[in-house]
């Protein structure tokens, strides 16, 4: 969940914007949280630039549109949001509009009957549905029904590299295959540069490597089998091969020294890349915004390169496949009043208008709207954004992050075992055994 921390580049500024933004809420609003009582639909989302002002802007335009419907906003910092929401749901005090990441979290809300089924609404409002990326509906769908409105931007996981370091170490091109990747490791290590930066303490960062390796070696079904609860799915030969390959990479000094104490929250992993201490990094597309903000002239001087995760020799998976966040998700709380639910749906239909799309593009994101690449041309970041648009729209399969897809219980076991795997505390076989034990939980 911390990967969305590109949103909290500066927590202090976030709080300031949050306060400023509260100034223009409509007269119908009451100050109480939760959804009870007032007719205004309540909406909780994450504070912090660049997302907060854009989300707030969308709410303000909706409130000013004069339909008499009002959306009332409360913002939270990333790390407190999930816990706060969990408590509110447990107490029956959740907001009308629940902002989230889809996948396994959404599934647990669905199983507890806490969010409304939106399938019929999307059928009646085909225009709302058809303009969005098809892949964005994956994490919003549970058992064939849609429970959330995809929103905001698409964030695939990509490889970033430091062109200057590549030049210094005599590496011409980014690796296209896994064996090529393994063969260039010594070139970096000889010059005292780590081949890959990694924020290992955050654990989900390590997980992204496995997501790609499983997919490249055996295709999306390797993980999907585990997700669908197939017995011993983690012992699949493709899975074992992927787990073995990652330990080979660790043994070959592929990752920066001390990676297991680096956290993604501090953005130290990106700093290693733009300071030239590491040559490459596998991370979310939001890293671009972080590097742009923190990395000085790194991007302006054309030192940042990017490519899709390399193919694995002899692998079955389509190398155009990607993983990441196919969007952000808005659900409607089942215990909200009818009036609030109506307002929420009208609000959903108003989302991702031209102004909001422009806002996301300026922040360095690609809105999940078909053809939004037409708007990218005027952006100073158009090369990168076009790359992201291409990766996202051409992906044969856009898998969601495992920890988002799985139930919280299985996800925690997964992250726990991943961290042990990267510490070389457990073997691939032990990893598979431990994970097989929580299939379907």
């Amino acid at each position, binding site marked *: 969940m911390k990967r969305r921390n590109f949103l909290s580049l500066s927590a202090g500024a976030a709080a300031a914007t949050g306060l400023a933004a509260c100034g223009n809420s409509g007269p119908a609003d009451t100050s109480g949280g939760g959804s009870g009582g007032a007719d205004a639909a309540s909406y909780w989302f994450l504070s912090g630039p660049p997302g907060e002002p854009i989300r707030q802007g969308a709410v303000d335009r909706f409130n000013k549109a004069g339909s008499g419907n009002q959306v009332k906003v409360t913002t939270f910092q990333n790390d407190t949001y999930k816990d706060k929401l*969990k408590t509110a749901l447990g107490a029956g005090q959740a907001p009308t509009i629940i902002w989230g990441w889809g996948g396994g979290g959404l599934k647990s809300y669905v199983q507890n009957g806490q969010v409304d089924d939106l399938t019929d609404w999307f059928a009646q409002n085909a225009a709302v549905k058809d303009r969005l990326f098809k892949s964005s509906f994956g994490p919003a769908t549970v058992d064939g029904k849609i429970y959330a409105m995809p929103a905001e931007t698409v964030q695939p996981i990509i490889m970033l590299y430091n062109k200057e370091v590549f030049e210094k170490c005599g590496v011409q091109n980014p690796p296209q295959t896994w064996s090529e990747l393994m063969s260039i490791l010594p070139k970096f290590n000889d010059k005292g540069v780590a081949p890959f930066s990694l924020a290992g303490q955050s*654990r989900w960062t390590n997980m992204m490597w496995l997501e790609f390796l499983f997919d490249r070696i055996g295709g999306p079904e390797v993980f999907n089998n585990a997700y669908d609860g197939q017995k011993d799915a983690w012992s699949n030969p493709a899975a074992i091969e992927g787990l073995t390959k990652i330990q080979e990479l660790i043994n070959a000094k592929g990752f920066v020294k001390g990676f297991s*104490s680096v956290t993604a929250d501090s953005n130290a992993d990106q700093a290693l890349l733009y300071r030239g201490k590491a040559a490459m990094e596998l991370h979310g597309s939001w890293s671009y915004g972080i590097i742009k903000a923190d990395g000085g002239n790194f991007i302006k001087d054309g030192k940042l390169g990017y490519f899709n995760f390399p193919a694995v020799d002899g692998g079955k998976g389509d190398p155009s496949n990607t993983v990441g966040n196919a969007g952000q998700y808005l659900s409607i709380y089942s215990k909200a009043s009818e009036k609030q639910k109506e307002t929420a749906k009208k609000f959903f239909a108003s989302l991702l208008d031209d102004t909001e799309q422009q806002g996301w593009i300026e922040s360095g994101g690609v809105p999940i709207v078909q053809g939004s690449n037409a708007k990218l041309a005027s952006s100073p970041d158009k090369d990168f954004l076009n790359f992201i648009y291409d990766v996202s729209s051409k992906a044969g399969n856009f898998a969601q992050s495992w920890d988002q897809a799985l139930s919280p219980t299985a996800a925690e076991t997964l992250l726990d075992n991943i961290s042990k795997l990267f510490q070389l505390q457990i073997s691939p076989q032990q990893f598979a055994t431990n994970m097989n034990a929580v299939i379907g939980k």
Partner: protein
Amino acid sequence: MTIAPPAVRSAPPAASSGARSGSVSWMAWPALVAFTIFGIIPLFGVLVLSFSSWSGLTQDIPFTGLDSWKSVLSDPGLPHALWITFLIMALSWLAQTPLSILIGVFIAAHKRYRGVLAVLFFIPLLLSQAAIAITYKMLLDPNFGLGAGLGWGFLQQDWLGESKLAVGVVIFVVSWQWIPFHSLIYQGGVRQIPTSMYEAAEIDGAGRVRKFFSITLPQLKYTIITSSTLMVVGSLTFFDLIWVLTAGGPGDATRALAVDMYQRGFRSALMGPASVIAVILVLLGLGLALLVRRLGGRDAAESQLEGI
């Protein structure tokens, strides 16, 4: 030492203890009410939850009997978490106690420069645990920390990324933060010791070291018990420091019971098993507190100053 005549224990006058304390017992009520509401009742809540399989999300709580207890007690993670908890407890006690006593004795003397030093020693106690943890995390960063900045080889360890070093760092930071507090307790303890004892020892020809071991240390017995109780029971609740510093990692090298409880409850959404661990923590805390008191002798109210 001279043998003191058997102490005459005069029973306290019955009238004063019975009647008066009876009339002022209402003074305990506000504290008792607060403790019941915020201490006892939640404790029973946790006990009840430990027999459920609540996810923390729903409004109705499914009760599943002993399932949570069975799953926790058969989990190999529990002995590991217990081991880490006791390891941190024992090593941080060993690191803190001698240093705290020495510093406490040092700052107990009425000299101005020691008073100034006492104030300086006190500073770590004023900082929040989270702030301390973040600061140390940055200082110990293998790529951007103190070691990398100064270029000193021995500082350039993977402090928080290697299991043994990470445990060591946790103990070091805990000691760094809490030694001032315990020094303060010892300072108070040392100042309670009658100077006549030291004067008598000097007449007998005792040196500085002899006085420390024969008078100061025995006289500090109950202070040591108090401070040890605080250390031992307090170390069960180390969470924020470990969470910010290592998040229980690398792997599960620093996953103490409190961290394990948080991960089960709020990360895995298993409130039942998390409550089981909470109950275990409470029982451990009570047991240890009783044990430490027992170690200090049968009658904690016994006077140290008999014969004077």
